[in-house]
């Protein structure tokens, strides 16, 4: 995991004189090799271990998530190859790998202290990655915003976690759960819940903690933004889910329509509601595709929260499936934006005009990504939504009570079709303004995009492969 990082940093310091593109390629190759090695290692030697009473845990579920993270990282790296926003190649790749490592630690921990540490490792790397484009003012501004928000939310998170420690006397999630179980809701516990939710809410860009997202998605260099949208989300959601479902196990409360009980579920329900509504409505008005993707990410975060809220047997699997496929799709979407930015110089909707004539393969990929995000079958996005909605209603206690939220989710999903179609409209329907004789899209950019698109289609048509793996892993993990 961490090894490749070191190798890389060292290596590239030696290659400084070479042409940028070449360096990028080499750097990417080494990083990818590293990722592949660690992925292969995990696959080959499935481990079940538990270090330090849950500080680091390895089981099949976590292995799966880590592999997914590595795949996302690999694609991010591939996307970085054709970019030209920085000359500090070595540092760049090192940071990406650092962030990836941070995420993998995050995924492996069951100890709140470890969680916090990994969270910060990841975040710090991401902040810097956001600022990496030194030529762009927006990049710096975005990073600053990210950092400030992040810092504040980290404070909240820490406070909440320390409250938890105080209440339970332990930093291990399972032990915390045992300690806080009891009737009623201790006001301190309520405070802890709210703090924790705030902290994690920031990480996953849920409303109303989302204010950093549009700027970061728009300002950061594209691969960074892509990485944040994909990998960071997957890892954060996984941990969020673990913390809430395991750590706060006794204090769920109920979010059903007629079955309100105090706990963290109602809190999450409100957050989810806000995210879905705000994300979708704000996206309607965007003219920059990257901002559109940002708000769309917020909305999708809202949907994913549905997976956290339920205790149906497969809800974790549903959540992870959704998160992973969303990550792939987001990566792909950003990749296309990157191509368009190279070709037309901007990321506004009008820059996409007539793309279907200029770069048919790329347009087709974008078609897949947009429709998947909108939830059109037979793509992965649709199945993810279906899966999560079905799980949301299947909860043991009062599953159907969540119907109101599901209805809202589906309704908002319908709204989202409008803005996704706007993008596609530009690509397919609007004629390209004549003078732009654009460069054909570079092959190396197209390959990862096509692979991603194929993955999205495949996972949508035959989701059983991934679903089966997750459900088996969840079962094995005894959840």
């Amino acid at each position, binding site marked *: 995991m961490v090894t490749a990082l070191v190798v890389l940093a060292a290596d590239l310091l030696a290659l400084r004189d070479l042409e940028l593109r070449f360096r990028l390629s080499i750097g990417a190759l080494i990083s990818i090799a590293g990722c592949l090695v660690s992925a292969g290692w995990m696959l080959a030697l499935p481990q079940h271990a538990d270090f330090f009473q849950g500080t680091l845990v390895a089981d099949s579920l976590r292995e799966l998530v880590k592999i997914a993270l590595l795949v996302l990282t690999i694609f991010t790296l591939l996307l970085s190859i054709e970019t030209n926003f920085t000359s500090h190649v070595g540092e760049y790749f090192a940071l990406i790998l650092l962030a990836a490592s941070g995420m993998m630690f995050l995924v492996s921990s069951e100890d709140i202290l470890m969680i916090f540490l990994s969270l910060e490792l990841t975040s710090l790397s991401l902040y810097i990655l956001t600022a990496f484009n030194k030529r762009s003012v927006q990049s710096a501004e975005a990073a600053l915003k990210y950092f400030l928000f992040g810092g504040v939310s980290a404070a909240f998170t820490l406070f909440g976690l320390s409250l938890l420690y105080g209440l339970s006397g332990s930093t291990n999630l399972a032990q915390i759960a045992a300690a806080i179980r009891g009737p009623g809701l201790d006001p301190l516990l309520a405070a802890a819940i709210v703090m924790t939710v705030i902290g994690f809410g920031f990480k996953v860009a849920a409303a109303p903690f989302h204010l950093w997202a549009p700027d970061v998605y728009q300002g950061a260099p594209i691969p960074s933004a892509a990485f944040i949208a994909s990998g960071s989300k997957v890892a954060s959601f996984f941990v969020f889910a673990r913390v809430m479902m395991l750590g706060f196990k006794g204090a769920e409360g109920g979010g059903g329509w007629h079955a309100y009980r105090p706990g963290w579920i109602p809190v999450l329900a409100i957050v989810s509601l806000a995210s879905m509504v705000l994300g979708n409505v704000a996206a309607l008005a965007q003219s920059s595709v990257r901002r559109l993707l940002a708000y769309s990410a917020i909305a999708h975060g809202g949907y994913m929260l549905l997976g956290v809220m339920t205790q149906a047997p497969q809800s974790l699997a549903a959540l992870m499936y959704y998160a992973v496929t969303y990550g792939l799709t987001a990566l792909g979407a950003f990749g296309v934006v990157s191509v368009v930015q190279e070709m037309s110089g901007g990321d506004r909707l009008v820059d996409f005009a007539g793309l279907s004539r200029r770069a048919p393969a790329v347009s087709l990929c974008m078609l897949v990504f947009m429709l998947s995000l909108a939830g059109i079958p037979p793509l992965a996005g649709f199945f993810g939504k279906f899966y999560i909605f079905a799980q949301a209603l299947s909860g043991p206690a009062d599953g*159907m009570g969540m119907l109101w939220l599901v209805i809202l989710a589906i309704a908002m999903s319908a709204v989202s079709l409008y803005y996704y179609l706007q993008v596609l409209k530009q690509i397919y329907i609007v004629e390209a303004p004549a003078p732009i004789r654009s460069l054909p899209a570079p092959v190396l950019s197209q390959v990862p995009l096509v692979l991603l698109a194929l993955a999205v289609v495949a996972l949508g048509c035959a989701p059983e492969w991934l679903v089966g793996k997750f459900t088996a892993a969840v079962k094995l993990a005894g959840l």
Partner: protein
Amino acid sequence: MLAWTIYSSFLGVAVLMLLPRTNARLARTVALLTALLGLGFALGGMLDAKIGEVHTITRVPWIPSLGLEYHLAADGISLTLVLLTGLAAVAGILFSWNIEHRAKEFFAFYLALIGGVYGVFLSFDLFLLFVFYEIAIIPKYFIIAIWGSTRREYGAMKLALYSFVGSAMVLIGLVAAYVVSGGHTMSIFELAKFPFPHGFQMWAFPLVFVGFAILAGLWPFHTWAPTGHVAAPTAASMLLAGVVMKLGAYGCLRVAMTLFPEGMAPWGTHILGFGSWRDVFSLLAVIGILYGALVALVQKDFKFIIGYSSVSHMGFVLLGLMTLSQVGMSGAVLQMFSHGLLAGLLFAVVGRMVYDRTHTRDLADLQQMDLGTLFPFTAVIFTIASVASMGLPGFSGFVAELQVLLGAWQAFPTLTVVSGLGLLVGVAYMLRALQRVFFADREPAPVAARSSGNGHLSLEPISIPERLGAVLLVGVSLAIGLYPRLLLDWIIPSFNSGLFGGLPKGPP
């Protein structure tokens, strides 16, 4: 064999994608061959299948963790609609023979739409059905937005959003049904037998029904239809009015009414004079019949007349479904078939034969052009199409409407009489259109003056593909009108199968 209707369509899409962009001719030919192939498979499938049974084509597990299967099957109703799709597809391509602009993409989207529609009619797993249903939405958007006419982007978006909202409603119902039934299957067979709680059915039924009915043009959710039809290019209008609206009605029948039959049972109390959802929807259907007809009567745009007439005719379908009697419901299915053909024919005349040549759809303008003399073939075809659409005996529409009205007598006598009024208004607006466009009274103008006035018309004669398409549609409508047993023998026994056992018993 029937499954190949779906596969061949998508294969056609793939082949089309690979063709060079500039060769419109090749694209057309490939598309036509694919459509003919699909039609052939449909006919072959009909010959294979046995009457009265549900004939399973494929049934394999798809996502076992969730109990979802890839389950294709067909009964008489499905077969009828698959046949309709095949015919409409072929006719639509024939009438689009003149498309040059981005032809390859046009036909690709077209075939994708057809494939999705075939899929819906053949799916017996609700998840699969929903997948195909949604697949059909996106090509529609693109076809209208790129190749349409009046306000095409607005019309396309409106259509897409309405459809999506409708399918969102359906999704809610389906997910709820899936969960409530234990979350281990979406097979229509299983779910039809599952005893959903009464209260659940009471809200699930209207939700799913309305969700599908939006696409079927139920009043007052029909407003996408006139705009969308007018905006769409000819072939798309033919498909939209001819086939896609039937998707909605099919969904109402196959999903809402099969799964949640108790939803139509009386509530026990009366609110505003309604005693059950059945009362509500039948009233809405009849309002649709009358409203569509009345509004068509005052239109100034030729295509709008036909667009509203579609809303009116679909009202008959929905009314037939609500009669809950075998004769009424089979009449509804027959009307789906008949209107599919006739609407296709009408739009073909308006769009392809008239508009493409005269570049106007305004009745006042057309009146000046003496189209009856210039295009006698078109005049004859439109005459036949309009009288068939009026419900004149001898054509398929008559038998269908006869059955629907028969079924409606017992249940909704007053509504039946109102529908009769709707029929009369139908005569009126069709006659008006016919007169204005083709047989307008002209002062016996000197022949010289007439020909000079035609300078701006492209007097392109009616091409062979158009003639073929028209003859195909007229022929089938006539055949079914004179010998409806060709289809009724399939349709009526389907209602005896176990699937419809739960329906509150209307009269036989």
